[in-house]
């Protein structure tokens, strides 16, 4: 096992805590009716985006999913601008035009949340092929859920990446459900590792609530990609704590399952216990991060609520080069 520096550990904790706080607050605000639109929360899966994206630079690209806030935060997007985007505000990451399901920040290599299931993977293929074509050391990561792995686009992307030996990582997030249908029903293969490996690439499965496990597996895959070793799949298993979308009645799921998850599969709790037990971090350091993050998210929500909406003429811009 690799020894991680204090800097890395503190960064990991801050990212996971930021995702947790952002999503928890969006859940509250959504229920109160202040956040317009549909939203799909990443609660329970924070360690995956964090463990993967901590190996990436701004020049590395990721494609995301409808459940994309966690990927955004882990990739370094400005949290306040994200909140502005959710609130339809002019100064949001996408000027309020994209919203939760299409949030993007190209300056951070975040190619966008994507509400079309499976549509992100080919985009990441393009990013990886660009890196190979131009001879840059960049890699791309295609985030996608277990449900997305059944789309033809993902099958095509996996084969394409293997055939062209692309610097690409398929970060499959098995959260147990494709929308409202459980994986035991929707997946024909024995498991996602076997299926991904069948395309001809290394594939491994890790506990997606264990930051260290994700970080190490993703590190191997990213290093392989950067070294010209081609694509890999990392399947991280972490059930989501919320419904498919906010407001989902979740009739397909035993709600006791969620209680258990919060008790035993909380990536933050697990991380905290481990780093305190092995003496690498102190509780006070983590508490300080908790307080700072809570303040940041609170400020983000307050600023987003108070921020100006787009101007009328903004409605018909960004469609073509000319308007």
């Amino acid at each position: 096992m690799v020894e991680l520096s204090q800097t890395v550990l503190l960064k990991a904790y801050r990212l996971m805590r930021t995702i947790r706080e952002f999503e928890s607050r969006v859940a509250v605000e959504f229920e109160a009716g202040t956040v317009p639109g549909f939203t799909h929360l990443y609660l329970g899966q924070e360690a995956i985006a964090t463990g993967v994206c901590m190996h990436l630079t701004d020049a590395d690209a990721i494609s995301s999913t409808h459940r994309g806030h966690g990927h955004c935060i882990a990739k370094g997007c400005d949290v306040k601008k994200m909140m502005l985007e959710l609130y339809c505000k002019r100064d949001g990451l996408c000027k309020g035009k994209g919203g939760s399901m299409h949030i993007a920040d190209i300056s951070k290599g975040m190619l966008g949340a994507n509400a079309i299931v499976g549509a992100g993977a080919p985009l990441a293929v393009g990013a990886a092929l660009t890196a190979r074509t131009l001879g840059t050391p960049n890699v791309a990561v295609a985030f996608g859920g277990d449900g997305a792995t059944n789309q033809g686009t993902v099958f095509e992307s996996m084969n394409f990446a293997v055939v062209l030996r692309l610097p690409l990582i398929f970060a499959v997030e098995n959260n147990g459900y494709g929308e409202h249908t459980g994986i035991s029903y929707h997946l024909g293969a024995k498991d996602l590792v076997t299926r991904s490996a069948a395309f001809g690439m290394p594939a491994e499965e890790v506990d997606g609530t264990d930051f260290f496990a994700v970080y190490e597996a993703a590190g191997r895959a990213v290093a392989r990609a950067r070294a010209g070793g081609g694509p890999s799949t990392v399947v991280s298993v972490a059930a989501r704590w919320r419904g498919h979308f906010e407001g989902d009645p979740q009739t397909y799921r035993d709600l006791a399952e969620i209680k258990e998850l919060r008790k035993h599969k909380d990536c933050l709790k697990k991380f905290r216990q481990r780093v305190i037990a092995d003496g690498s971090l102190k509780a006070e350091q983590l508490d300080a991060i908790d307080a700072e993050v809570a303040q940041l998210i609170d400020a983000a929500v307050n600023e987003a609520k108070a921020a100006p909406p787009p101007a009328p003429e903004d409605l018909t811009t960004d469609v073509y080069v000319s308007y």
Partner: protein
Amino acid sequence: MTMAQALNSAMDVMLARDPNVLIFGEDVGYFGGVFRVTEGLQKKYGRNRVFDTPIAEGGIVAAAIGMGVNGLRPVVEIQFCDYIHPAFDQLVSELSRLRYRSGGQFWSPVTVRTPCGGGIHGGQTHSQSPEAVYAHVCGLKTVMPSNPYDAKGMLISAIEDDDPVIFLEPKRLYNGPFAGDPEQQSGRWDAHPKGEVPDGYYTVPLGQAEVVVPGDELTIVGYGTLVHVAVAAAREAGVCAEIIDVRSMMPLDIDTLAASVKKNGRCLIVHEATRTCGYGAELSAQIQEACFWSLKAPIERVTGWDTPYPHAQEWEYFPGKKRVLEAIRRIMEIA
């Protein structure tokens, strides 16, 4: 009944009448559909006839085509019409073309149900209106009801039809009529005459427009949610407008539209979809061809803008009551 319940009732009736009818799609079985349109059907008819599929729209439509060719009568749901594009090739190159290219030997009577339209703050991938795209594909029928009574009768017609049908359901109308004013709540279908829906079998034929409100000063042609917007706008304008619900884009009942425009001499076309090559362009062309010498004013269109459906500014995009009202006044001012 609400529109969602009426559609459910149509499938219930057809599952009971015809053993070849089956329902499948994403979350339509156990969960009952994200808009509850297929609720209870799996429980009643079993998993062999009402079943869930993986998230794979291309596969859903393709499998339905194969079943249709082989004697079954599949009704598939694409959860949002914005998700339909992975199936585009199957719809355009296969489903619509089989009859022609086999010289009439075989075809596939698939019905593709899919929620369309905005007004629910769904942003660009949960709000679009693709009727013009499919009306353009010969071999497909494309229809869109605007109320529970028509929804049930038209869905039964679609299922019984040996031609493939793209059945677009304006999602903003599922649970109540909506007159296009975001400040006001949706109405209630149980208080609307078209919310009265018989329990059993009946049909509303495809390819027939309906005069929703008779009038002799102006003809307003629309479909889906915009029918309700037009009714409210005309009332507020104090204009005696004849409001026609197109209901079926392909085949189009041009006779009903032309008779009205010839009588009134003024015509406004309204739809949610983007403007350029929107279905209003076809309506305008056909009405002009049929009614040129009777027109007292240019035919006008009120539509969505030529932009993707926005997250912010939904109500600036959506052609609501205000914009329809302004257009009515413009047309009526022309001497």
